[in-house]
């Protein structure tokens, strides 16, 4: 849900259901890196309720687009992390079996 102004699209608050610090902190981090963002933060209105409010203020671009780009960046970062990790594990496994073969 987006809470904002109809006239000024660059500032709005997004209320996300079924989310918590896990996702909100990561997306806040990626948004902060974006040079279009002047302010970005998140809050949890009540800990018993599974809801997060993400506030985004930009230098002119619609906040919705910037948030989408932030989520997209986070997705690409995760994919990169996953591929790098898998490669590192494979390298470790092959190097270990290589050592075993050398010893034997």
């Amino acid at each position, binding site marked *: 849900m987006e809470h904002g102004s109809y006239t000024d699209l660059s500032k709005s608050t997004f209320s996300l259901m079924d989310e918590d610090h896990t996702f909100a902190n990561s997306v806040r981090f990626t948004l902060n*890196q974006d040079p279009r963002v002047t302010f970005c933060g998140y809050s949890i209105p009540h800990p018993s309720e599974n809801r997060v409010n993400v506030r985004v203020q930009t230098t002119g671009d619609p906040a919705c687009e910037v948030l989408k780009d932030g989520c997209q960046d*986070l997705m690409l970062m995760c994919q990169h992390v996953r591929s790098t990790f898998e490669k590192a594990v494979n390298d470790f*496994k092959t190097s270990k079996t290589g050592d075993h073969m050398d010893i034997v």
Partner: protein
Amino acid sequence: MSESDDSMSEIDAQEQNHSNGVGGGIPDYIMNLDNIPAKLPTHLELHKTRVICNIDAPQHTDPINYSGAYAALGVDNSVRLDNFCQNFKVEVKRFTDEDIEFDMIGIDPAIANAFRRILIAEVPTMAIERVYIANNTSLIQDEVLAHRLGLIPINADPKLFEYPDNAGGENNEKNTIVFKLHVHCVKGQPRITVKSDALKWLPNGSELIADDTKPNAESKPKTFTSFRDNHDSKKKFAKNPPAPKNLDIILAKLGPGQEIELEAHAVKGIGKTHAKWSPVATAWYRMLPEVVLMEDVVDEMAEELVSKCPAKVFDIEDIGEGRRRARVVNARACTLCRECIREKESEDGADKKEKESEDGADKAIVIKKKEWEDLISLRRVKDHFIFTIESTGAISPDVLFTEAVKILEDKCERVITELS
């Protein structure tokens, strides 16, 4: 620390000049150069990339990642995705069936914490949820026994199963694993310890009759699960039947004449609902410690330093002429106990008095004994995380991490579709 003095005077200039100390405005020929990387002064770079751990509290703990943080200095703090992809590295240090220790370099604590939270609470596993107790004459109460059964890690791949339909849907082979436990301690026998290896997998589903109505001769009696006789599912479990991961977990103890007969149904769930579904014993990360000796520590001080550190971070090296110097040899092992920079009050007073009497006799200049805190700088590298994942055994730890990253990607996708 002469470097920082130079940089202090250059802060007034918009950009950091590398060799010529140009004061005041920046010359045109520099302004007209292309792609000058504006760098932060050394001490700000230190504050940005290192947490300095003093004896009382750590300093500069906040990762400054706002893109306009250093705008006044003309330094661009935004990190583009390709920069991240270039600088990001993973190094696996230790990898066994049960745990993995790897380094992630170039990532932010927000994302590392997200992975840790997902590993603990949101990666699904199988665990016993429903226990149908037919007979329990042991000393362990029904609910306590059921609780203990729930906590047993089950060696079954949760990807092969679906979440149970909590609206009272069917319990079929797609979402339930059925175990049976029937132990009887006969009178005259010694006491029996019921261990988790007594749980037997029932590939055909539940055997306890659910309905009270007398079944017809032809139809099968209705049980608590509706398994279809599916040969495919039996094939995929042929090599690796679902069973408890550890076969020596003590569930109950039976005396003579006591009996336990029950059926346990395992379903898929996540750690958020109940900790029994958490796939990791635990998962944690720490930042890479960095120990820097600001000055040379020689001879007796070096010996003292090496003996003070319980993690064996320092070691002695000989620098000739019988003199010894302390060297940082294993900064990674530092647990930040701060023993090396701690000053014991009584020792300090005694040392100072000793020095004064010596100097009075020799008429030498009194040198104030250096505080340990000035000699050693304990730091943490802000973007280098040492991740350790200890799995309960059901899923291999590298698969666990990959699953956790996938779950974060799914969250992003869900939000993107919600926004569009």
